[in-house]
């Protein structure tokens, strides 16, 4: 890919003795919908605020479109931010809020008017142009905040938990809408979120953060299917983990011996690891296949007892207890009507999976 729109180069930020971001390096490409995902306090918001210029890095530097932003104040940066609280000016109308950034550039009045109208159309807020923020609902304020931060056509739009203040249903609708708007305007979006589902559905790439550093960067498929660390496997989705050691190498797979299981586990596409290396094997719940008859394969199956089931409509979740006491979680699509047919608590069954659906993680 071409030169990244944002290069974060060994950036650190401390507040007193607390290190919010430590030695973080990251490149964000032009036109991406990029998410910074992590639990609260992992430094994701601090990183976003450093991109906006609201905080200065203690160390390292940030380049936006090739220009070093060290010491550049927020009002001179080619980025705009959508604040978590929206930060709409309460004494201005919707129109005036959207026009605010354009006025700072001393655009001619007619041009400002046209641009404001275009932005309000984009977020479907044109009928509310003369209202004040206090007269709008939460969802409407969110749209105005989006229009205001997009009006100046920034090189990058920074979004700080843009959907956190909305209720669940509206949040889900707005996800798709935000992605659609991003496609239309073609601006690079960098979003901070703690909601992994949000990051998965909206982003082209995700950086999973932990304690001021990046654990993994990749597409939603990468971070879900091929997590590179135990933290990421656990943080994104549900993970069934087995502890063991690499026992032998086979032509296209690695075998892992688990003390708690009778059979070896096989993992395809595993990184080269020496025999004897302690590892964890991770399998996602929907990759598990439940059967009443004993599987014929030599690898990757265990005997268990259904401890609990949860019917979720389209899916059912089964908690399966193994002889070792470990609990596995399996989800199955309810392709047929399940009334009476599916496994129920107390049933003995077999859990199996394909070597390509397991991931090896180094402990």
């Amino acid at each position, binding site marked *: 890919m071409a030169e990244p729109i944002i290069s974060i180069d060994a950036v650190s930020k401390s507040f007193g003795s607390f290190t919010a971001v430590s030695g973080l390096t990251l490149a964000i490409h032009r036109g991406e919908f990029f998410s910074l995902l992590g639990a609260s306090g992992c430094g994701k918001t601090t990183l976003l605020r450093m991109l906006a210029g*609201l905080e200065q890095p203690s160390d390292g530097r940030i380049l936006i479109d090739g220009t070093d932003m060290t010491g550049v104040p927020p009002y001179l940066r080619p980025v705009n931010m959508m604040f978590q609280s929206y930060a709409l000016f309460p004494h201005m109308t919707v129109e005036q809020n959207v026009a605010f950034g354009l006025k700072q550039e001393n655009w001619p009045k007619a041009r400002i008017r046209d641009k404001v109208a275009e932005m309000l159309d984009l977020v479907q807020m044109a009928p509310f142009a003369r209202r004040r923020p206090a007269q709008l609902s939460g969802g409407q304020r969110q749209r105005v905040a989006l229009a205001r931060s997009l009006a100046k056509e920034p090189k990058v739009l920074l979004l700080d938990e843009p959907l956190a203040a909305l209720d669940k249903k509206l949040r889900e609708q707005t996800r798709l809408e935000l992605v659609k708007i991003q496609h239309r305007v073609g601006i690079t979006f960098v979003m901070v979120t703690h909601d992994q589902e949000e990051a998965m559905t909206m982003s082209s790439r995700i950086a999973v953060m932990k304690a001021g550093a990046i654990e993994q960067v990749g597409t939603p498929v990468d971070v879900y299917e091929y997590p590179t660390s135990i933290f990421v496997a656990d943080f994104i989705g549900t993970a069934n983990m087995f502890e063991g050691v690499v026992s032998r190498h086979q032509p296209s797979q690695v075998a892992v011996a688990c003390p708690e299981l009778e059979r070896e586990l096989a993992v395809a596409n595993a990184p080269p690891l020496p025999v004897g290396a302690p590892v964890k094997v991770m399998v996602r719940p929907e990759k598990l296949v439940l059967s009443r008859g004993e599987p014929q394969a030599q690898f990757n199956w265990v005997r268990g007892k259904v401890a609990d089931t949860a019917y979720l409509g389209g899916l059912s979740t089964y908690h399966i207890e193994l002889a070792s006491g470990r609990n596995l979680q399996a989800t199955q699509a309810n392709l047929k009507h399940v009334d009476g047919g599916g496994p129920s608590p107390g049933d003995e069954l077999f859990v199996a999976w394909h070597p390509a659906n397991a991931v090896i993680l180094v402990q």
Partner: protein
Amino acid sequence: MTAIKVESASRRSSPGGRDQGRKGPAIGRRLPGGRFLVGLPPYLWLGLFFALPFLIVLKISLAETQIGIPPYKPLLDWAQAGVLELRLNLGNYRTLFSDDLYVIAYLNSLKIAAVSTVLCLLVGYPMAYGIARSSDRHRNALLMLVVLPFWTSFLIRVYAWMGILKTEGLLNAFLLWIGVILQPLQILETDLAVYIGIVYSYLPFMVLPLYATLEKMDRSLLEAAADLGCRPFRAFLSVTLPLSIPGMVAGSMLVFIPAVGEFVIPDLLGGPDTLMIAKILWSEFFDNRDWPVASAIAVAMLVALVAPIMIFQHFQRRATE
């Protein structure tokens, strides 16, 4: 009175206020008349300590003077058997307009109060801004310093200013010592001394409401302004200043209204030619023993002050809309 206006305005500005009002009847149903009882004390208070004394003053302002105790004639009189005579003397009010003294004194009071209010605003705004932006650790100490002078009697503080401002006072001594002036300045007994006195005495009333509005202002608004390309000074003009208008209006009213009727400061610090309406009122009352004219001045002053209060309320309404 002003304090009550501020309170009612702030109650209106609370977003939940209307809903709470709607929930009221449910309690009212359980406790008949409970809501009425709760609302009673402020009315009782206002009736007893504001409306009633005002009606007495209004009555005296419509009476005729007489030599005696009290020094005015009753309004109602038995003219002859069975005939009750009500005599309303509007002459006292005519006196206010026939003699230039009263109008000039009143206008001068308005001018002194207005200039003092503007000066308070100019001095108080940076103070309030500084306190609101200071660290949590310093904020309480700074607020304490603003309120601290109230611990000393107002009268003593004004007397202290006499010692500072008089020809052989501290200020002149200091200015002579550093060589800025060669002759001591006549500050005491001038309008300047009155301005200094009023600004000094009423500054906390300007600083506190301003501080309250500036302190609760969402800091992310200034970040948003900066993010949208607004330089700090322009952000102050287009965001901070307009959002602090309610505090500016509240502070200005708290300074302006009492300053119009200020008596102690012009009496002690001002000269004989510092005409203020409260000084005239005093001399009508105590020197001339003309209670009816003095009362008419008091009523006229109150009526004239209703105008700024209504402007104030108009601003408050607009700000909370």
